[in-house]
């Protein structure tokens, strides 16, 4: 098997694996750029996956067919945004500790989702959804040699994730809204003095984050796991946080980091089937993504600069 054939297998896997991570990491950026720590990404993804599967099942039953997973994603965005109020209200209005809140929300999300699955279906995991997001071959592009590694056997959601990253970058760095969002995360008092409503901006930041988190969970559930159980989302939210930090709170950086994770995972998983790599004992391949991440964080990226006011509740008039 030549080098190209290897890439034809590895790249689509990396793209599929990265999509939910990119989307969730973007969510983290909006929240943290506004000054609210978002450990709750994992929980938001759980709610998104749960909502995605339940709505996809219901919509399919109503006869929506192939459109059902896409509509389910929209529902998951709305539910994610609403669920993120559990973080926004105590963190912004009542100045609760944001890290503790995030951890609590992660536990709440799993418990609530499983409780509801039991209430709806009388069992601990849902059935598989009949209509899902499938891997597709992009017309024309998937026939071109070399280039086809990006266009054959891929999920459209991977492209959506990458486009969203560019949109998010534009919004955060090139629009007045983005400037305000960043200013309340860096120096809320200065922003307040200039007439920016800090509370409102932070609410918007966290709710956008909730929408992204919900979408990320729904993407994973409707394209990869196809059903929802307690183990559907298991650590992906935390990987997304790592991607966000790795990418220095920049949407494009986070996207690159998530793609890097995806690529490392893909190599790690199917390395056993590839020439040369199959000579390496599997345990080294399995730990490789994590070792690479540590090396990259420690050596290449340099200091990770968080927004200055992240995690600090804003109290008007306090110096």
């Amino acid at each position, binding site marked *: 098997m030549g080098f190209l054939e290897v890439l034809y297998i590895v790249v689509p896997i990396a793209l*599929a694996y990265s999509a939910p991570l990119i989307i969730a990491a973007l969510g983290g950026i909006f929240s943290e750029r506004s000054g609210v720590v978002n450990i709750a990404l994992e929980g938001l993804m759980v709610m998104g996956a749960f909502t995605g599967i339940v709505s996809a099942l219901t919509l399919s039953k109503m006869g929506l067919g192939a459109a059902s997973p896409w509509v389910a994603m929209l529902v998951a965005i709305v539910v994610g945004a609403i669920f993120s109020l559990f973080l926004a209200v105590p963190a912004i209005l009542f100045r609760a500790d944001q890290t503790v809140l995030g951890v609590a929300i992660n536990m709440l999300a799993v418990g609530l989702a499983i409780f509801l699955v039991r209430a709806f279906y009388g069992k*601990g995991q849902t059935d*598989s959804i009949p209509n899902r997001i499938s891997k597709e071959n992009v017309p024309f592009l998937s026939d071109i040699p070399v280039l086809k590694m990006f266009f054959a056997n891929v999920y459209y959601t991977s492209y959506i994730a990458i486009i969203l990253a560019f949109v998010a970058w534009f919004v955060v760095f090139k629009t007045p809204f983005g400037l305000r969002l960043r200013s309340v995360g860096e120096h809320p008092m200065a922003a307040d003095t200039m007439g920016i409503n800090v509370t409102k901006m932070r609410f918007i930041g966290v709710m956008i984050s909730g929408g992204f988190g919900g979408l990320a969970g729904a993407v994973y559930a409707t394209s990869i*796991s196809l059903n929802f*159980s307690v183990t559907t989302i298991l650590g992906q939210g935390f990987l997304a946080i790592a991607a966000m930090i790795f990418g220095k709170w920049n949407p494009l950086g986070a996207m690159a980091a998530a793609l890097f994770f995806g690529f490392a995972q893909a190599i790690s*998983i199917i390395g056993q*089937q590839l020439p040369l790599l199959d000579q390496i004992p599997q345990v080294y391949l399995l730990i490789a993504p994590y070792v690479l991440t540590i090396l990259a964080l420690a050596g290449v990226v340099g200091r990770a600069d968080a927004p200055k006011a992240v995690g600090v509740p804003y109290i008007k008039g306090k110096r």
Partner: protein
Amino acid sequence: MKKKSLLALAATGLAMSSVLAACGSNDDSKDSGSSEKDGFKVGMVTDTGGVDDKSFNQSAWEGIQKFGKDNDLKEGTGYKYLQSAKQSDYQPNLQQLARAKYDLILGIGFLMAEDIGKVADQFKDKNFALVDMVVDKPNVASIVFKENEGSFLVGVVAGLTTKTDKVGFVGGVNSDLIKKFESGFKAGVMAVNPDAKVEVQYAEDFNAAEKGQAIASGMYGKKVDVIYHAAGGTGQGVFTEAKNRKKNGEDVWVIGVDRDQVEEGMPENVTLTSMVKRVDTAVEQVAKDTKDGNFPAGKVVEFGLKDGGVDIAPSQDNVAKDVLTKVEDYKKQIIDGKITVPATDDEYKEYEASLK
């Protein structure tokens, strides 16, 4: 100073005696034979998969439910299950059932082996049973299956169905248990199609659908056309990948495991067949024996093809007729003892050598 320490001593003494007294009363009630008063009680502890994992937890629970109904037991008092959300729940759950004086306490899944051993030592007068692994304690019965025999049959199906002469095996975690599936499967393939190549990979995870999908994607990409998975939730990803490929016109199949997984293959219908493990039959059998006073204490109870403990699933519509006749033929040979199906890497090597 002296007075205080004396007081403390007295207090500890009092506390100790009350503890001892509690123990004593416990023993008393045990002697009076609570089981006869309340009727037979059987309980099970799930592993982290949960009671409706569509796999062996669910199957075990179905067996207990059937046993309960046949013996007019009530759910909750006569028979019940405790769910384990994480590994650290195993011991407390087992202890809880032991304290509640259950006559038979089942641990489901080999992940629980160590914990059931410890709890069995703490409650020497209670009967424990473990599914899927051998624990050598005088009050533990080990219920194991000859998965290699069932896997042999689906191996025969895979070997005769493949058009590319390449089949795949995706395992959950590389362990003695999953090796039984792998060895049996490979032996089955080799028996009918010595030219076939079997690709084997372990995900080292039972709950990572994305890993299962990636592995399957790699295998199908290398022209494997039938994959047998023994990987729990990770196998879900194998089905996802197969469905995607079939939708795009590729001719690929998945062989399910533990139960009839025909539903998982819908709507593209990618499930060739499944290797079923009748945990329900086995659990029901052991519960029945225990109730009749024949608890297989300290013994290994093995369920193979002969006892209906493992088999090929009833959904066989996707398998060709002549393949099924071959399967029946091999099934008879295994039951008659004409073929000994390998269960480990070493046994497989011997088996392979004997074919040549």
